[in-house]
């Protein structure tokens, strides 16, 4: 990094004036997971100190020392959810490796440095008197779930995770299918959640339908729902949840700045006179489902 670049500097974005920070984070763990997934743990003290579940980091995929040379691919940073905090100063991310940026990140080895900005955006809001917290995740939407579950469990809520995917290969965790009973994700369950996992290809049901079926079981007061996954899933959940249970959703959109400046990553939100746009990177990625204009949101 050049002299002008700071190791860690509070910026204006993010929630409540904490960060974002830009720093050169060391890779302290790098592990290939089943299918095309990968776990990276970064030493990022300033980020770890203030990150909220649902916030993300924006990562430059090339070596920090080469920032002076324009790359020809992965020109832009890549947004990844903070998956879990690893005290004292670790930030874990889970990648589903699909494109060039993901490949570059998955190729990093312990000791490599990454130029990271974060924590960015607004995470999931939690509050003390949540009785039952239903967390719904689809596919790589499971990435931010561990931090969220940890937070919810710590706040005393009963946490129910309903996770789904097309196939077991689409999630970054190991699936356990006991002889009797439903499939689970032991690593996630260990964080303090009751886990149900369904894969379309095995169980033949969509997770949204599981949610719809189980919605009645929830106490009317003190329940809350949190979701992350493909837009079609989120849209269906918003329908299901509407009028029954407060729902927060985490959205994705193509980003450039990641800071709220460029207006790349907007999604339509309802407003008094028609629609307005909010940014996924700064206003989100987590929104109240009721706030989103689902009709105008592209699939």
């Amino acid at each position: 990094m050049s002299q002008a670049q700071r190791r860690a500097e509070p910026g204006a974005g993010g929630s409540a004036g904490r960060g974002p920070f830009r720093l050169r984070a060391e890779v302290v763990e790098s592990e290939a997971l089943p299918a095309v997934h990968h776990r990276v743990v970064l030493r990022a003290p300033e980020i770890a100190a203030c990150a909220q579940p649902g916030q993300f980091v924006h990562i430059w995929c090339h070596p920090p020392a080469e920032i002076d040379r324009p790359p020809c691919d992965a020109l832009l940073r890549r947004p990844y959810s903070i998956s879990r905090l690893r005290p004292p100063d670790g930030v874990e991310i889970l990648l589903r490796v699909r494109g060039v940026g993901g490949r570059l990140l998955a190729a990093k080895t312990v000791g490599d440095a990454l130029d990271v900005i974060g924590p960015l955006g607004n995470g999931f809001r939690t509050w003390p008197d949540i009785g039952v917290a239903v967390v719904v995740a689809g596919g790589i939407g499971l990435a931010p779930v561990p931090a969220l579950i940890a937070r919810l469990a710590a706040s005393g809520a009963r946490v129910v995770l309903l996770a789904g995917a097309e196939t077991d290969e689409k999630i970054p965790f190991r699936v356990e299918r006991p002889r009797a009973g439903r499939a689970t994700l032991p690593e996630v369950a260990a964080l303090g959640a009751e886990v149900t996992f369904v894969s379309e290809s095995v169980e033949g049901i969509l997770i949204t339908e599981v949610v719809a079926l189980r919605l009645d079981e929830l106490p009317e007061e003190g329940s809350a729902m949190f979701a992350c996954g493909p837009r079609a899933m989120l849209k269906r959940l918003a329908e299901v949840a509407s009028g029954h249970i407060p729902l927060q959703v985490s959205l994705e959109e193509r980003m450039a700045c990641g800071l709220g400046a460029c207006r790349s990553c907007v999604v339509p939100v309802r407003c008094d006179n028609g629609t307005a746009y909010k940014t996924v990177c700064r206003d989100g990625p987590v929104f109240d489902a009721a706030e989103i204009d689902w009709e105008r949101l592209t699939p």
Partner: protein
Amino acid sequence: MTAPDTAVSIGSMSMKNPVMIASGIFGYGDEFRGLAEYGELGALVLKTVTRQPREGNPPGHRTVETPAGMLNAIGLENVGLEAFVRDKLPAALEYGTNIVASIAGEAVEEFAECARALDGTGVAAIEINISCPNVKKGGMAFGVDAGASAEVAAAVRAATGKPIIAKLTPNVTDIAGVAVACERAGADAVSLVNTFSAMAIDVESRRPLLAAGSGGLSGPAIRPAAVYRVYQVAQAVEVPVIGMGVIWNASDALEFIIAGASAVAVGTALYADPAAGNRVLNGIRDYLESHSIARLSDIVGSVEL
């Protein structure tokens, strides 16, 4: 050797050095705060504003990466002139360097109105964006025509005493002709290039990757095309030329300067490196020192064919 002299004047706007931030990259300046010493740069150009707020292009992808570049089609989403002056400008002025407002409109009178409203504010200069490829009316519609460009420049000239910069589109046959027309109409400088109009298609869905269909190409990809246009314009006008088209490092900036740019603006590179402007500036200083060049102006337009 004393430190090289990097000062540049654009009309009455004095810049301590030639490095600016390009419009639209940096929003209204607040979002990047703290990620670099933006006050060290010569000038910061804020996101283009229009008289009324605009919601920009429809939702869906507004940016997409392409080989060595990116397309954007934001569609001039902005808070509108009034909110800009009231809510955004004061904070930007705290950077302690020149703040340049960028304005656009669908009619000549709209440009003039914006300029009039900015005349009493603390902005150091006004950039007129007659080159946005991402809005149907206005924007590029003016910039592709020398006469229409001159009309806008003249109307803005009449409306403000601030220095004015005409921002030009490369999507024309004769960019130097447009530049000269703007100069004659009273522009104190010209800046170029805005993005090249472009389109990328997903062959599976057979739909454009950008929600808006087409957009503007920026990135290292276009640098040689941008450098050439700066060269052409610098040969044709007397006023300073501000060069841009992915300036990523000092060498890129120097290419533009040697081709004829008196100042340069950093754009897309800021997304990768929020401190790109400062990095470029330091590199320019190093180059001047190591080549014993006393004044930056000594090498402006020094390319030998």
